[in-house]
């Protein structure tokens, strides 16, 4: 049965209808302004990338190295977050621009776009926070929910979460291949190896560019350029990891049992997305650099709406949560990060006993589930 809350089936249907209406309104009003937004972000990103790489040719001068590395880091962050992630979601397909389309896009990440679209758009966005189904829940290596049985390896999870942050793109790329499913016999080996080959090919190409070709072009600045590119990749990885773990792992977000998927209606699905996601509050530049995943709740409700519209619909989603007594988890970046780390540290140790939200009793309306400030 669907995720238990205090809401009646009628409430859930009403909430679903209200959310559908918000979605329809945005779909009907997409136009030139939105199109100009993504074109500008793409132009800005390419400008930053060219500028950063050009500045780094003078990398023997420390200020040039710093400026180049900063610009390249920003470019890589924009490319993965506001552009790549969202284009691959099909958020901009409505423009029918063959250059900005989910079926033609490839991004500067170790994960080939095709495999990522499956593991992210389909698996993660359909089965969000469902234990045993959403592989993003802890990325198969972290214990982020008390329902995951403890084992001694998790004692090291604070350490390897740090390592995952620095190596995030490679971590995600390997994880997308689902090697553990091949070992368990759930996935054919030839398909797994094909994916692995595709990933290695891409990793090689991206690695060649950042660690061989550009450093070599810089001649005497070979080493500074290599280090600058490495720094930019690591900065981007840490940033992406930080934003993404804040989306689903803060303490107030819920996880779900597989049984809760049975008979799930559209409204139930919306409720699960709401309960399993958390926002990050902050200035517009944070939203831009996070690829608007700072509006993780809105993104999970409406994964294919253009990202520039999430800020606009957020107050309406929040008002609906208040009306229906549902939590709308949000907080500043430091606060959410601390919250995630508390969870990771706590769950490195055995326990606690999973606390299940009780099934609703018809005709009653218990307290709303835990509300984060």
């Amino acid at each position, binding site marked *: 049965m669907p995720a238990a809350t205090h809401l009646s089936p009628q409430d859930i249907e009403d909430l679903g209808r209200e959310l559908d209406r918000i979605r329809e309104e945005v779909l009907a009003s*997409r*136009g*030139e*302004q*939105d*199109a*100009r937004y993504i074109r500008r972000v*793409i*132009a800005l990103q*390419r400008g930053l990338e*060219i500028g950063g790489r050009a500045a780094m040719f003078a990398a023997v001068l420390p200020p040039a190295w710093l400026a180049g590395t900063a610009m390249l880091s920003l470019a890589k962050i924009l490319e993965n977050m506001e552009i790549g992630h969202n284009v691959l979601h*099909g958020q901009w*397909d*409505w*423009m*029918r*621009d*063959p*250059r900005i*389309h*989910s*079926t*033609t896009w*490839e*991004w*500067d990440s170790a994960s080939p776009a095709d495999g990522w679209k499956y593991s992210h*758009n*389909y698996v993660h966005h359909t089965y969000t926070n469902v234990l045993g189904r959403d592989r993003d829940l802890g990325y198969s290596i972290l214990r982020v929910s008390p329902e995951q049985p403890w084992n001694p390896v998790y004692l090291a999870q604070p350490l390897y979460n740090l390592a995952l942050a620095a190596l995030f793109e490679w971590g995600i790329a390997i994880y997308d291949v689902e090697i553990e499913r091949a070992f368990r016999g759930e996935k054919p080996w030839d398909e797994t190896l094909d994916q692995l080959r595709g990933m290695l090919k*891409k990793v090689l*190409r*991206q690695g*060649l*560019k950042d660690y061989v*070709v*550009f450093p070599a072009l810089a001649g005497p600045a070979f080493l500074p350029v290599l280090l600058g590119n490495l720094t930019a990749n690591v900065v981007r990885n840490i940033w992406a990891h930080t934003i993404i773990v804040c989306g689903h792992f803060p303490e107030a977000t819920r996880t779900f049992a597989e049984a809760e998927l049975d008979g799930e209606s559209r409204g139930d699905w919306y409720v699960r997305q709401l309960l399993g996601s958390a926002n990050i509050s902050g200035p517009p530049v944070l939203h831009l650099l996070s690829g608007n995943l700072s509006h993780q709740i809105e993104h999970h409700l409406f994964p294919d709406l253009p990202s520039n519209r999430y800020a606009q619909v957020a107050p309406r989603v929040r008002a609906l949560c208040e009306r229906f007594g549902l939590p709308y988890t949000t907080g500043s970046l430091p606060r959410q990060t601390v919250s995630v780390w508390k969870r990771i540290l706590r769950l490195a140790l055995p326990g606690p006993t999973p606390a299940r939200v009780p099934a609703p009793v018809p005709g009653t309306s218990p307290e709303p589930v835990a509300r984060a400030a």
Partner: protein
Amino acid sequence: MLGIRPLLATAAGALTSPLTPDDYRATLNPLWSRNRPSGRVKAVVPETADAATVLISPGLGWRRGIAGQHVDTAFRIDGVWHSRTFSLSSPPDRADGLISITVKANPDGLVSRHIVQALRPGDIVRLGQPAGTFVLPAELPERLLFVTAGSGITPVMAMLRHLAAGPRMPDVVLAHSAPDPSKVIFGAELRRLAARFPSLRLHEQHTRPAGDQRSTRLTMAALATLCPDLPARMAWVCGPAALVEQAESYWRERGISERLLTERFHPNLRAGNGAGGRVRFVRSGRETTTSADTPLLMAGERSGMLMPSGCRMGICHRCLVPLADGRVRDLRTGVEHGTAGDLIQTCVSAAVGDIEIDL
């Protein structure tokens, strides 16, 4: 042997991966793209009350074609690209390098109205390469006949301009139909050409002169009278489907079909019966619902798919995609068909019930 160009492209690709150098060129200026050519609108010149010629400066990747060919274009309207195919009205050898299309605004046509009424100099137009066999042959015949109606004059205008710029105007008869003299697209230029070249004979058929409600269309019998040596001429016929079909049967009955080239506008689409259905695009995982008389091309485009497209009237076969499951109806004939694996023309096919497309 490897040329220097592919080598350079590979080297540049190593710098821009996962993008291509072309992506960066196009970001700086869409006209610099070689892979996806574009053009910039230089001027929009009114031809009649509801038709206009768009002069376009083509970018680097564009290759000029042969007089009479058409070109795929795409226009951005409120953030969305819309593709349409138009005949080029410019000859391929224009001195200033510009190309032109001439478009009549259809009251129900989003794209044609945009072109005539809203397009401005400086706007970017996406361009395909010139294509089509409705052209002048490399070796010009002695005598030519052009039969056109309405905006069917556009490809013929490109040919006439090409001939007018050449060394010698061959023996040409042009029979053009339009409602009245003011609605003749390129009217002034056609009359000027006829005055300048004695070997060019222009017949204007005004089908509704001075608001007359009785239509006086050009019949094949009338055509044969005004052009007695018709069977001896190489003929080009371009216009609405009815005109083209009449011409095709007339030429066929006389056994001279090999001397006829045709191009038609507007297919006669029939309303489908039944309820349409759900269309699933298997590879992209996208789904949309459609009615029984909506071409699959339109249904796909509305859902944001990048559909291959061309003439949009079932002629050029550029829109072919494999059917994965279900059946479709040909909107021209009403015939239901399709088994998995068939290549279907999405521009003239509608879904019969739920279908799947391998795209």
